[in-house]
């Protein structure tokens, strides 16, 4: 095993371990912070796969914006620094089983689809901003547009929700 492979495996372990902590820790804010560790480890994996652009965008969007907003909402609604009771529900085994099933489905489809794909990290152009952009706006343009419509719908939904409560208050 080369140094890159060892590092990749370690980062993967960190990602999976902290992801488990996200769903098991008793403090909600700590859960959000473990999520940061997971996403950061994933960004590290992208870096090792020479996908520099994706790695920094991952840090910028997920670590820097999404989880901060999550924390923001958590702090506005549940601020105590002490551990909370009632974060564990009776649905826990069901949720765990479902999570394992989803993970199995995803892993098997990934393995089936990309088993024979090899990336030559020494002289490839897989991860630069240019190749990422080209791939995104040529072969993946339909999923990209569909996702943007989905995000737009979420945006409109958020606006509608916040406006209707305001109108009701008056």
């Amino acid at each position, binding site marked *: 095993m080369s140094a*890159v492979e060892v*590092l990749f495996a370690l980062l993967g372990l960190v990602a999976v371990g902290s992801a488990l902590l996200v769903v098991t820790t008793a403090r909600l*804010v700590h859960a959000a*912070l473990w999520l*940061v560790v997971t996403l950061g480890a994933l960004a590290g994996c992208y*870096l*090792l796969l*020479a996908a*520099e*652009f994706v*790695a*920094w*965008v991952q*840090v*910028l969007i997920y*670590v*820097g*914006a999404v989880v*901060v*907003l999550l*924390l*923001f909402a958590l*702090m*506005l609604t549940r*601020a105590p*620094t002490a551990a909370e009771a009632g974060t564990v529900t009776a649905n826990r085994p069901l949720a765990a089983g479902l999570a394992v099933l989803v993970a199995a489905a995803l892993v098997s489809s990934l393995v089936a689809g990309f088993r024979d794909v090899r990336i030559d*990290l*020494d*002289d*490839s*152009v*897989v*991860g*630069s*901003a*240019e190749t990422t952009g080209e791939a995104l706006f040529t072969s993946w343009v339909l999923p990209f547009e569909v996702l943007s419509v989905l995000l737009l719908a979420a945006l409109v939904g958020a606006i509608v929700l916040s406006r209707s409560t305001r109108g009701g208050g*008056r």
Partner: protein
Amino acid sequence: MNLAHGAGVILAKDDLSEFGNDPWWLWLVKGVLIFVILVVLTLFNIWAERRVVARMQHRVGPNVHGPFGLLQSLADGIKLALKEDVVPKAADKVLFIIAPVISTIPAFIAFAVIPFGPVVTVPFTDIETPLQLTDMPVAVLYILAVASVGIYGIVLAGWSSGSTYALLGGLRSSAQMISYEVAMGLAFVAVFLYAGSMSTSEIVAAQERLWFGLILIPSFLIYIAAMVGETNRAPFDLPEAEGELVGGFHTEYSSLKFALFFLAEYVNMVTVGALATTLFLGGWMAPWPLSLWDGANQGYLPLLWFLGKTMLFIFFFIWLRGTLPRMRYDQFMKLGWKVLIPVALLWTVAVATIRAITLDEGIDRRYIIGAALVAVLVFLALSFVGEKATEEEPEEEPEFDAFAGGYPVPPMPGQQLPVLTSVTGSTGTSAGAGDTDDGGAPVSEEDRGA
């Protein structure tokens, strides 16, 4: 960083081959030098801020310790280090200690990709190296990403203190930094389009003929507003509004932990100033009359231009603080989301269109500039028409009684009068204080008579 950098050199279309060839000791020297420069600059900037603001307010400022009071910051630093380190009982201990560290480290490591100067020869050797720790094809994205990690320091400091003031301060600053980061990122897009690269050294090289700050004025202005918002400085220093929030997110911090937050704030000021210099003011390139002399951009001299331009931004920060009063929070958010971001989006689309047309077809620029002028005029005319309509609206709203509850409070836009309950009345004597038929008052008078 080493690994990422190694991959970057291969992937880049940009020519970054000058980077990554240094021997290990040179890496170390560069890293330590950057650290030392930033810490010394912080000490100097704190002194400079106090002296300049004092001069603006017809005071003297610190002038006792050392020549011109230059050692004042050092004395303050030693004093801070000797203070008792208090950890509140309600605090989340681990996060409380980690938070200042998370806030400080990103401020420093963002400087890894800032170019201080051109390729130079290291003294006493014949090694040639750029005056920059490293560079990568997505260097500016890296700075943005690192800066966004720095927000965690503030959010966590606010939350882990277990104090209301700190929590509210932390929430404010995180909301502020996220909002202004969007505008900041959008301001960069036009620069990327013109430079054709996201690497800092390539962007500086692309400004050899003309600074981007001169041709991309809207981007530059948006960036300046965003950088003041991003660093939580006056007039956007709402997270530490003393009158409302005591010290904001660092209310509960003392001793060296507090010093770390202070350090992070001042290093961040230098970082955004250096980034503005790099992206908009030609980086280490000499300013115009000096640039006519060929030697101005060679050797170690550009270090001087770079630091000079960065210090100009620091002076600008201090000047703002000495001049402007603090903005109200809702006005500040309105400026960010309803003015800066839409303008930045429009400008980005306009720049992209102009770039695409000039690159593809080569239409005469005069037509494009003429069309842009007409568009701007139409936009301005429309905005004035719209403004009149909105300006007339607020007059219909009922007047807000600032002393409604006995406390002077400024109204939020569209805020209604709170329904007041009489303190002395026994039951069911609630009425709007703004109502004309004084509902609550007679009851309390009766009570007094009884």
